[in-house]
């Protein structure tokens, strides 16, 4: 099916199943421990050997010698794989650095060996006996000091590296009210609870990996490319994923080393990447330095907007596209955006939940708050005044839906924004300084080609198969809802099978496109099944009504079981997209409201209340969508207040590489959270009229917290995270 014109009325609009706040269909499996995660595929791959990864001990340089003698002689050791004995290895299209390093070391904790042994403990113990000598080389580890060497990156996911409209310099110079400020965001880690983990097994020249991966198709392709084998010889199975946040979009060392280990020892090998390695061995969200200049008329119309962002990555890497949202969020005739990418020898940067917008909005939405204050305007009203219904860089492109104003207004009313004192540092509750902050949220809605297979068996049961993944988002559930709605059956008549590369290729889970795009693929397949059913039963395809497990037309009714017959029916289809996303700008919108209390003595910030109002098309399942948004809001609080990979600029690595020292919010940090979804459909997006929502929830949260801290204390912090040391010098003196 090709989606080329806006959706009209279709079976999804019945909303008997879709749009309902249903429990996750995979919930009981997960709460009873019966959902097998990658490392737990005991039945699928019995009698595995265990791999333990050795990570490089330097940030950049070469291995001068490696002595495996003692380790090989250790009890239980079956094999040790290094770059020297692994055979020829290529590099995956989605990898920047090699997954098995040596002799050249590209970053700290780059895998340089895997020790395979009979037990995990033996592998771990022997790994400590691998003796490595290095020649360290001088590397670049400090973004601030190499920023000016940054080059214009090539065009990637985040659009062109530079854009310009009108004459920014002239308009900015002429603007009666100006803001010119620089903001920084630190390197951050996905810190998902399930580590990267894989069991690999070979049967002849065919490889099967049970792994934890968001993008089955990418994983198959990059495994095949890295090993130099045919894609058809790689099967990737990833039915359950314990969190990914972008950290599991790619083939990583656990999967490659398990495959190499299994080939060497001729039996299955399982590897869970050690927690201490995860942060430096895998990808992270890169740090940014962002300069924002805004020019406005005295009555608050933005006339000039410039956003420049610097980030770093290993040679061949990509920028953090932190200027993306600034191209779209506010009106203004004269505009400039630019990204620069410097070479750094830190571990490779890549996507983390809302790449680009998450750190970009952290800066932009403070800048907007600062500008509103300079203008003496309420920050909600300032945003509303500068709203646009068209792409400001290409005014011929309208937004498919844009209800940012309604998000802001609804939020202001529900949150009690009118109780905020616009003058900072005025509201006290005992020793606490109280403040409220607001930020807009924008995250683009991407649509991706996605295929599915749908089977109807003789009992009338539906089975959906697609290589889509569920990273905790609720994919199983919204796909089941889509199939049940389209085919007129109850949810318990649908089984969804995901995460297997033998299933049709889906869009995968990333960029908040997963829910809408994968369900649209399932919709296409279900519509094809409807056609097959009417053809087989001789019922009129145009009149047929699918409801209550039956298809009816012209006064005749046939149960789906009967229609299936003994052989059943099976169809496959792919949802593809025309150019609606070129003609229209598709984005999701929101408004975040936050109240904080800052301890006037210690500068500790505690979030008191949070509200997100989201306009993100049809919400396929308000319960799973809400979970996504509150999870993203929680992550936004982490980004605002505590998350920072600390760079050792001399030795070249992220020092706080465990969950004790890389702090993410705990329950005590997170207060009452409320989420409101505007009642919306977007027929430009897909037949489901839905959009993404899982990343929208984090966009802007950090800035809303920062703006609330400013409102509470009068201290403007432009460097995240906003830890107490950045506040205490400017808080009221203590007796």
């Amino acid at each position, binding site marked *: 099916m090709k989606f080329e014109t806006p959706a009209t009325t279709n079976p999804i609009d019945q909303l008997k199943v879709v749009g309902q706040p249903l429990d996750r269909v995979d919930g009981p499996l997960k709460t009873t421990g019966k959902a097998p995660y990658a490392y737990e595929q005991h039945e699928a791959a019995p009698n595995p050997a265990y791999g333990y990864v050795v990570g490089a001990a330097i940030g950049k340089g070469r291995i001068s010698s490696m002595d495996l003698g003692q380790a090989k002689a250790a009890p239980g050791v079956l094999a040790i794989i290094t770059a020297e004995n692994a055979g020829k290895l290529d590099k995956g299209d989605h990898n920047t650095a090699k997954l098995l390093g040596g002799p050249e070391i590209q970053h700290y904790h780059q895998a340089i060996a895997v020790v395979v042994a009979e037990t995990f403990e033996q592998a771990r113990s022997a790994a400590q006996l691998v003796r490595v000598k290095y020649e360290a080389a001088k590397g670049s580890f400090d973004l601030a000091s190499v920023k000016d060497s940054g080059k214009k990156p090539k065009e990637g996911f985040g659009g062109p590296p530079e854009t310009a409209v009108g004459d920014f310099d002239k308009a900015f110079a002429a603007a009666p009210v100006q803001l010119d400020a620089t903001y920084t965001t630190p390197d951050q880690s996905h810190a998902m609870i399930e580590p990267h983990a894989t069991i690999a097994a070979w049967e002849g020249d065919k490889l099967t990996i049970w792994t934890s991966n968001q993008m089955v198709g990418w994983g198959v392709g990059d495994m095949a490319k890295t090993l130099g084998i045919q894609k058809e010889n790689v099967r990737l199975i990833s039915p359950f994923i314990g969190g990914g946040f972008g950290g599991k979009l790619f083939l990583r060392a656990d999967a490659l080393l398990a495959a190499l280990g299994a080939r060497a020892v001729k039996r299955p090998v399982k590897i869970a990447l050690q927690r201490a390695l995860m942060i430096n061995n895998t990808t992270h969200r890169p740090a940014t330095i962002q300069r924002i200049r805004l020019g406005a008329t005295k009555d608050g119309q933005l006339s000039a907007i410039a956003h420049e962002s610097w980030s770093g990555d290993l040679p061949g890497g990509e920028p953090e596209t932190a200027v993306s949202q600034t191209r779209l969020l506010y009106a203004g005739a004269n505009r400039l955006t630019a990204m620069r990418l410097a070479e750094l020898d830190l571990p490779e940067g890549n996507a983390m939940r809302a790449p680009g917008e998450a750190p970009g909005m952290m800066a932009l939405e403070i800048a907007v708050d600062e500008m509103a204050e300079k203008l003496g305007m309420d920050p909600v009203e300032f945003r509303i005044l500068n709203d646009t219904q068209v792409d400001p860089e290409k005014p011929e492109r309208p937004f498919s839906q844009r209800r940012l104003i309604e998000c802001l207004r609804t939020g202001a009313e529900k949150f009690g924004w009118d109780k905020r004192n616009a003058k900072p540092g005025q509201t006290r509750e005992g020793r606490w300084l109280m403040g409220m902050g607001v930020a807009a949220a924008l995250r683009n809605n991407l649509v991706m080609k996605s295929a599915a297979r749908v089977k109807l068996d003789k009992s009338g049961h539906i089975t959906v198969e697609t290589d889509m993944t569920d990273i905790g988002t609720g994919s199983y559930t919204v796909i089941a809802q889509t199939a049940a709605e389209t085919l007129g059956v109850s949810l318990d008549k649908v089984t969804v099978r995901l995460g297997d590369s033998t299933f049709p290729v889906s869009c995968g889970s990333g960029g908040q496109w997963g829910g809408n795009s994968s369900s649209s693929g399932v919709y296409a397949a279900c519509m094809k099944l409807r056609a097959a059913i009417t053809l087989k039963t001789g019922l009129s395809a145009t009149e047929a009504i699918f409801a209550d497990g039956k298809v009816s037309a012209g006064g005749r009714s046939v149960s789906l079981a009967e229609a299936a017959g003994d052989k059943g029916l099976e169809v496959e289809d792919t949802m593809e997209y025309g150019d609606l996303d070129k003609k229209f700008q598709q984005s999701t919108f929101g408004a975040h409201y936050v109240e904080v209390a800052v301890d006037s003595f210690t500068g*500790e910030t505690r979030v008191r209340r949070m509200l997100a109002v989201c306009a993100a098309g049809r919400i396929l399942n308000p319960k799973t969508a809400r979970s996504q948004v509150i999870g993203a809001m929680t992550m936004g609080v982490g980004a605002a207040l505590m998350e920072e990979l600390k760079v050792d600029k001399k030795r070249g690595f992220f020092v706080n590489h465990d969950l004790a020292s890389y702090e993410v919010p705990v329950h005590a940090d997170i207060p009452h959270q409320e989420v409101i979804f505007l009642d919306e459909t977007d027929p430009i997006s897909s037949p489901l009229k839905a959009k993404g929502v899982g990343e929208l929830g984090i966009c802007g949260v950090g800035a809303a917290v920062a703006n609330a801290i400013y409102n509470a204390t009068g201290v403007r912090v432009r460097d995240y995270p906003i830890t107490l040391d950045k506040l205490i010098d400017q808080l009221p003196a203590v007796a």
Partner: protein
Amino acid sequence: MKPFTYERAESPAAAAGAAMRHPGAKFVAGGTNLLDLMKLEIEEPMHLIDVNGLQLDKIEPTPEGGLRIGALVRNTDLAADERVRRDYGVLSRALVAGASGQLRNMATTAGNLLQRTRCPYFYDTNQPCNKRLPGSGCSAVDGASRQLAIIGVSEACIATHPSDMAVALRVLDASVETILPDGTTRTIPIADFHRLPGDTPHLETVLQPGELITAVTLPKPLGGTHIYHKVRDRASYAFALVSIAAVIQRDGSGRVAVGGVAHKPWRVEAAEAELPRGAKAVTERLLADAKPTKDNAFKVKLVERVLGAVLAEAKGA
């Protein structure tokens, strides 16, 4: 983890004796710190002596009117003890400010005193660390040191002691009772129990080889207002940037010990004389010789401000 042998000790004296017979042996009780460190091969004991069966798990009154806390009393039980909550509130509050419910259920009184630093370089076996590998150097001095010590530091080590409980014990002037391998016992004032790093940061306490902690005793109650104020980047489950244990009397006199700033709970009795003159005056004496890094210089100011909060709370109470 290196292979090790294991035994269950029958008595405190037998445990201490066994430790002498097995060089490099370690006692294990709750295991909340030791087992993690063994998995990372930061601790590599050849022999473990399990002391959990030694029945050192009672809290009893002392003839002097204090409390004797068995070495194996779990942190959860100690924090919840009615006498501790009534007479030594600062201790109860310090305990519940630390770790998590699960960890406190396992962690023991003696083990809490003996936990190792959380300096990230101590945990990364690729990096030099004088505490982990004496003589190898200190990576933290010119590395990431925001969490680390500001006072009592040496060129060899700027690690902090991570315990909350120990800070409260220091303000209460507790004593540590031990038994030595020869069967003799001794009592060590908490002030003398932990060492400053100097040139030997791998030596963290004054315990002799094989010496086993059997109890911690608290002198008779001090009265006053008991406060434990812990400051950290997240609201729970984090080590202190700075913590203050304080017992403040109605007349404004009192005692103050600081955590998160040194290799041991930091207390300067002379500084307490400044209490009536406020937080700034006390802090100036308390941290007179502070040598912070660029990363953790804020802790000097933070101590003053946390102490300000403590004194304000005491006044209000």
